């Protein structure tokens, strides 16, 4: 019995020592179970709902670079002004006034980064947009929303998913049918997956998982 007690005490001590060490390293508590990020204050409270829901503007209209490169990008102020210089009805509202203050001073708006991955992770938007929007022809809001949540209900963006590696892998680990039963390939472009070859099932469907090569994202 004493042996057990000593054992347990040692174990507790080790765990608490480790936990307290890790806790000090964290700046804030772990996110809650629904992976919701904190509310982030932006210099201008940009209403996504007004633009994406009411106006029905496509995400990629502003976040143009998502189909071009690594980052989707916050649009240059020119994009906002392009429309708003012609919209008299909201010209004197507080947020638009603030926008034009920045524009007249030619000062860039210092937005706060909401979806900020650590520097050792390199996520590439272009490949995901190419695959899901242009190849699988899914609606843009559904594709963007899969990772960024229902942005059309928000004003400023708030992180909706954990963005941790495990969460990314949960999608990459799903088996996708790339060739349907009967030999019909899904989509028009070839599928290529690093490391894991597509598996051929009994009925002729070919399924594959997403890239799980470390260097796909950590290079």
């Amino acid at each position, binding site marked *: 019995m004493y042996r057990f007690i*000593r054992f347990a005490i040692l174990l507790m001590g080790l765990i608490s020592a480790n936990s307290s060490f890790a806790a000090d390293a*964290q700046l804030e508590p772990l996110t809650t179970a629904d992976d919701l990020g904190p509310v*982030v204050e932006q210099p201008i409270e940009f209403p996504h709902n007004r633009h994406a829901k009411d106006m029905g503007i496509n995400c990629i209209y502003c976040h143009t670079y998502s189909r*071009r490169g690594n980052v989707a990008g916050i649009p*240059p*102020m*020119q994009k906002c002004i392009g429309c708003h210089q012609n919209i008299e009805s909201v010209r004197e509202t507080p947020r638009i006034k603030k926008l034009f203050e920045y524009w007249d001073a030619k000062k860039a708006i210092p*937005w706060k980064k909401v979806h900020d991955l650590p520097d050792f992770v390199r996520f590439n938007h272009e490949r995901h947009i190419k695959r899901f929007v242009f190849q699988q022809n899914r609606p843009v809001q559904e594709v963007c929303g899969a990772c960024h949540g229902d942005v059309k209900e928000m004003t400023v963006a708030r992180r909706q998913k954990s963005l941790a590696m495990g969460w990314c892998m949960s999608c990459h680990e799903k088996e996708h049918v790339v060739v349907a039963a009967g030999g019909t390939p899904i989509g028009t472009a070839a599928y290529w997956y690093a490391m894991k070859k597509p598996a051929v099932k009994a009925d002729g469907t070919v399924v594959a998982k997403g890239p799980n090569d470390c260097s796909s994202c950590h290079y």
Partner: protein
Amino acid sequence: MMDNNFDRRDFLKVLGWGGAAVALTGCGNTSVQDGKETVVSYVEAAAYVAPGISTYFNSTCAQCEAGCSISGRVREGRVLKLEGNADSVINRGKMCGLGQAGVQHHYNPDRVREPLLRNGDKGETITWEKAYELIAQKLDGVSGDNFDFMTGTISGHLKVLLSNYMDSLASKNHFVYEAISPAVQRAANLKSYGVAMPRFHINKAKVVLSFGADFLGAWVSPVHFSQQYAQFRKGNDGQRGVLVQVESKMTLTGANADRWLVVKPGTEGVLALGVINALGVAGLSLPASVAAMVKPYDKERVSQETGVSTEHLVKLAALLKERSPSLVLLGSAAEGYAHGSQNAAAINLLNQVLGNVGKTIEAAESVPFPQIAPSLGSSAALRMVGNRLADGQTKVLFTYGVNPVFTAPKDSNFAAHMAKASFKVAFAHYLDETALQADLVLPLDSALEDWGTHVAEYQPDGVQISIQQPLMEKLHANTRGMGDVLLTLIKKTRAAEYAEFEDYYAYVRTALLQNKRQFADAGVDDDVFWNDLLSAGLVNVAGTSNKLVANLASEIRLPASEGVDAKFPLRLIPSVTANLRDGRHANQPWLQESPDPLTTIVWDSWVEIHPKKAAELGIVEGDIVEVESKSGSVKAQAYLFNGIHPDAVSIPLGRGHDAMGRYAKGFGVNPFPMLDRIFDDETGELAMHETRVRITKTSTRVIVVKDEGAAGGNQHGKKIAMSMASDAVDLSGEA
């Protein structure tokens, strides 16, 4: 645990559970940061700009005089990385370490950002308007004879503007200074070949005999020659090229040689004449005058004077006779003596005797626009400026691209003489030693922010005019391009003539457009031509071809073997390393960090001593030794090195700054001041290898910081790389 019953299994269990606990607590979103960093979008971006996607712009490297063309990768408006421009015949897409460090010249935290006016010991920030006013005021009433402009090597349209500016002040005193330059060679080449810098076709030679020319490191155009060297090694007609290096201290090129011959410092010319004699003995036909001249240089005498064995001498002659064409190169080591010109003449004679002229040595083409051809620097310029300052002839001194206070021998008293000028302006990127002596420091755009054209001295094919264009917007609002500064200055006196040029960019553009016909097809639109030119980053034009002459030297006077100076028994070899050169880039930490190829030492200077000499003097690696000449002394760590003549020691040039920023100041020692003021008899160039020194041990010893590890790079005695006597090697089976 006190209880002995605690056994291994429990220990492992605890370890396992504890480990899991750590892992579990380490999971989760501890590294995704919400709302901490800012992402600043553009205000207005050009259509082709996309974050994360790079655009490439071509320009010209300004880190040395080779003038390689570069391609800069620019992302989000910032230049991030430089690579070579594939279209350049000089560097063909390649680049050296010095070039890579160009970004550090640009982003250097110690760049001068504002015009500074001296107030006692301090520099006070003033506006550019005030600075120009002050210059106009100080030049007022000063005759052109009393105005001196000291620059480094200069070419292209900046040179044109500068000469026009000098003209506008009725001054002929533009001095071009380079602390390290092949000036002796240029003069000797003119005499022997009729051109100052011929083309050397290393890739066409079967044997290269280099008298200290470090063509893989820092000689003339290293990136170009390195590529030629690769072809040379691949071989002509299936025969791999053989490199023989003759020098008193091993250079990077020497380390690559098949045969490295150490010579007594200064006796390179004697060896060259000895080789000619041996060639004659081996049966090569020599012109009568030459045969008579080399008759006294028989192999015994030459061997005794140079230290090269008769066996090697004969072998070398045999090799040169058998494999033709060959190429004999001449480096700064051979030039650096009072008889440097004679050494050069002897070495050039060897090329002529071997029939290399016209085969591996050819004339370069003349630049079709001589006004943009490079003005080449020499150390004689330093003497001229120094003398004029000392005599009080110089009232106003402008400096650009030179640091004479750092590179001048102490006995020249340059800094003291400089103080005599009533007004000194330094056009500078950093507060280096010379800028600190100035009355007014004007901050310049970096090489990656400025416009310009460049014509390099060494032109391997045609004549390449390299374009320099900004790779990004200015980092600091108050720097100016040198061209813009000169344009503003010249507009003060010649306003009408230059009124049409809003800035230097307009000046260069107009000048190049005026000569459009020579660069492009007739009828091409101006804007199309200009955009294509900028896109390419260079233009190659045919120059007027030249012929080489065959001037055999009629008389070569080499000094007899000198006795040993008892007070200063050793010779000092100030070495030129590829990454430091004359010290202009010591504030680029990548270059300080790059280990010296031979000693692998970083961030510090050293004194290379042959192990035999070190044993004699009781010196071990790390001992701080004092190296003293008549003119000065330095203290540095000793490094034992087999690749040096036992009667010589070597200290690298380029370190030992006491200004020029946090990465340069205080690292290493500067051997420039301790060089004796001995000059080449013919050209007046500073004979940098003539300095004699003595070494004394101090009581300090340090650990040498080097990459090769404590055991050292010396493989002697470790039976790692075995060597055999050359006559015991049977290469008949080799392909």
